[in-house]
């Protein structure tokens, strides 16, 4: 049964390589995108942290800024 699934009547090499290529592409794209997102989030947090009190108050008025900070703290 297992041998049959692996060899697939002699087509196993083609079928498995097509599926493997697809899944490796998915994983690569996911991790690259996640890395880019994390990098921007970290940049945002460090910039936000370096603001003075008045600027922080202004920045906090925007709901999306609060969303970014809360989503970053969950990582």
């Amino acid at each position, binding site marked *: 049964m297992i041998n049959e*699934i692996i060899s*697939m*009547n*002699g*087509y*196993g090499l*083609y*079928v498995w*390589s*097509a*599926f493997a*290529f*697809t899944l490796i*592409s*998915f994983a690569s*794209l*996911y991790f690259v*995108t*996640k890395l*880019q*997102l994390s990098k*921007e*989030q970290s*940049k*945002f947090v460090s*910039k*936000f942290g370096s*603001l003075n009190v008045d*600027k922080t108050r*202004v*920045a906090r008025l*925007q*709901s*999306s*800024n609060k*969303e*970014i900070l809360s*989503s970053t703290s969950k990582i």
Partner: protein
Amino acid sequence: MTKFFKPNKIFAITSRAPKYVLFLFVVVLSIGLTEALILSPEDYKQSHAVRIMYVHVPAAWIALGTFSSLTLFSIGSFVFKNKYFSLISKSLAPSGFVFNIIALITGSIWGKPTWGTWWAWDARITSMLILALFYAMYLLAWRIYEGKEYVVKITSMIAILGAINVPIIKFSVDWWNTLHQSSSVNILSDTSIHISMLIPLGIMTAAFALFSLLIFLMKYNTELIKIKNKGLDRL
């Protein structure tokens, strides 16, 4: 309508959605892989090589659908003068490009046992290769001209020019004699593919669409945070 695409409104949804989409994608992909690799029957002519269809066809569909959406949002950014439409287009491109490459490579792998060749300058394959070039040009244009005023114009022009190729891909099998068969799955007319193969094909398409949505959301969030970073600099 365009107010809906403003970041402050949409970020609350897009920042929370990826984890749910990822979970759903893993579940649907697991079911799809089991169906595609184990449960679905082999073809009487192509034997097990037919299983490559379950990654090749959904990848091609998603690549085409993504480019069509990318073009619509590019046109939208012209009509409504809304920069967030171009941000949506930009966020759609990476997954569309990867799906296009997957369709080309898995098609090549499928071609060897079926047609006896890895590559042929067949109308469908060539037009898909041209689409990949348009995706590459679109992504490169964003990278090269990022921050410049005219970047939206250039990338939108590439998208609109590339969209001419989309119906050519769709109808290439009808307009020319190609190695590809004419379409087996049709929305408006009869579908010639058996239900035992149509189900795994549908599940794999759903999984691929979810992955495309996941990457889009993550990329869109990245772009919005980039804008917010610039906003903090200006405070």
